[in-house]
Structures are given as structure tokens and as C-alpha cells.
């Protein structure tokens, strides 16, 4: 039997918030991304900080960044947060790490989540931060 696939372009107009996940561990990233998509979010998956900057610099709409701290490459999560604070002030950011909260650079004050976390915890924190962002 033929599998059906409806060919239609993604419609992003007036839709749910876009979450940019920055995480180098693919199985963890996929797990979080799939859960958030199941909950109605639009998710962009970035494997490192450099890719995240490429997305932001391309003016792709992003409502919140959820980033790991320890990542390969020239930039870690803390450096990415500092970049975002400078280039996209007001964009909500959650920084996560398996160790104690790394001090973010400059005036950055991201929300921090300690690993390990559940996908439900991640969703809850994202919803709270988006709501707080809308209220301010």
C-alpha cells in the first residue's frame, strides 16, 4: 500500500511560538524537539552556537532560545547568551548545563536549568518564560 504524503508548504503565519534548541547531543536534542512539536511549538534544531547565530542572523523569527552550555566549537552556551543579549536584547533564553550555572557574559541573565531534566520540565520552563516575556 502506498504511504500517503500530502505535499503542502509549511504555514508559519500566525502560528505557535518558535523555539530554537541549541544542543550538540543529537538524541537529547531530538527528544526535546519532538516533545515540543507534539505540544504545538515550532522547533528549530541547532547543533552548536555557530548554527544558532546563523539562524538568528538570517532573521528567521525565533521566540525563545534553549541552549546547552557545554558544546564543541569556538563558542559555548555562555558565549552564545552574551551574543544574544547584545544582538537580540529581550529575546528569552534558557541556559542549561550538567554542572552549576555558568556565569553568562556581560549583562546576560538567562534562566538556568540543571541537567538532567525531563522534557515536561523543559516545556514548563519555556511556557513560563514566554508568558513572562509577554507580560513585560
Amino acid at each position, binding site marked *: *500500500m*502506498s*504511504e*500517503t*504524503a*500530502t*505535499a*503542502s*508548504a*509549511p*504555514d508559519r503565519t500566525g502560528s505557535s511560538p518558535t523555539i530554537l534548541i541549541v544542543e550538540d547531543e*543529537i*538524541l537529547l*536534542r*531530538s527528544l526535546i*524537539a*519532538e516533545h515540543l*512539536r507534539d505540544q504545538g511549538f*515550532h522547533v*528549530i*534544531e*541547532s*547543533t*552548536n552556537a555557530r*548554527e544558532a547565530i*546563523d*539562524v538568528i542572523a*538570517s532573521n*528567521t523569527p525565533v521566540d525563545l532560545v534553549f541552549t546547552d552550555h557545554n558544546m564543541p566549537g569556538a563558542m559555548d552556551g555562555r558565549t552564545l547568551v552574551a551574543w544574544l543579549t547584545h544582538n537580540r536584547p529581550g529575546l528569552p533564553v534558557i541556559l542549561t548545563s550538567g554542572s552549576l550555572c555558568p556565569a553568562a557574559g556581560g549583562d546576560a541573565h538567562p534562566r538556568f536549568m540543571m541537567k538532567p531534566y525531563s522534557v515536561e520540565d523543559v516545556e514548563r520552563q519555556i511556557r513560563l518564560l514566554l508568558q513572562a516575556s509577554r507580560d513585560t
Partner: protein
Amino acid sequence: MATILVVEPDILVRLVICDYLRSCGYRVIEAGTADEAGAVLGSDVELHVVFAEVHGLGSRDGFWLARTIRESYPNIDVILTSGIANASEKAAELCDDGLMVKPYDHEQVVRRIKLLRDRRNSSGLT
């Protein structure tokens, strides 16, 4: 519906094709490097099709990935893509319908996936 692993190093290309495939009803897993693709292949995720760029995937390329899948995961179909024309000949040895040359049409990717899945389903090899 089939699960597709997209292996593409350019995030702006990857996010568009992945969003498109999801809008068509596929479950899509995203990888930026061949090593990431290897991690998914070695996990318990059931994959049906791998759609991979040939170049820019880190220490190993899309040809390595296609060979690995052909040798160790014969139930998974592979589609290779590249913007570099001379990749075509080598790709033809590793995937049945040859290389998809970039820039590709998104509907063309879905047609290729459906063709491979229909072939599997009709041969009972899923």
C-alpha cells in the same frame, strides 16, 4: 508514516527541508554531521530513509554514511544530495536512483521518498 533522517550541515537548508517533510506527515530527525547520523543509526530509533548531503559532514562524508548503511542497515534506503556535480558518479554506486543535485525541489524529495517506500512495501522488505 516513515521516519526520515536528514543529514545536512547547513542549518538554513536543513530547517526548511525538515519543516517541509514534517508538513507532509513524516517523522523527521535532524543531523548536522555524519557522526550525529551514526549516533542515530546506533540508537533504537527505527529509520526508513536517510536523506544525506555528501559534503561538509565533518570527519566522514555522505559516501561513508551510504556505504555504512548499505552494509549494516539494509532495511534503510539512502538518498544522497550535493551541489557538487562530480559527486554523481560515486553516488550512483551507492543509491539506486542516483544523486539529487542541489538545489532540489522539495516536492521532488518527497516523490523520491515515496518511490523508495513504495518499492520496499511492494517487495515486502520493510
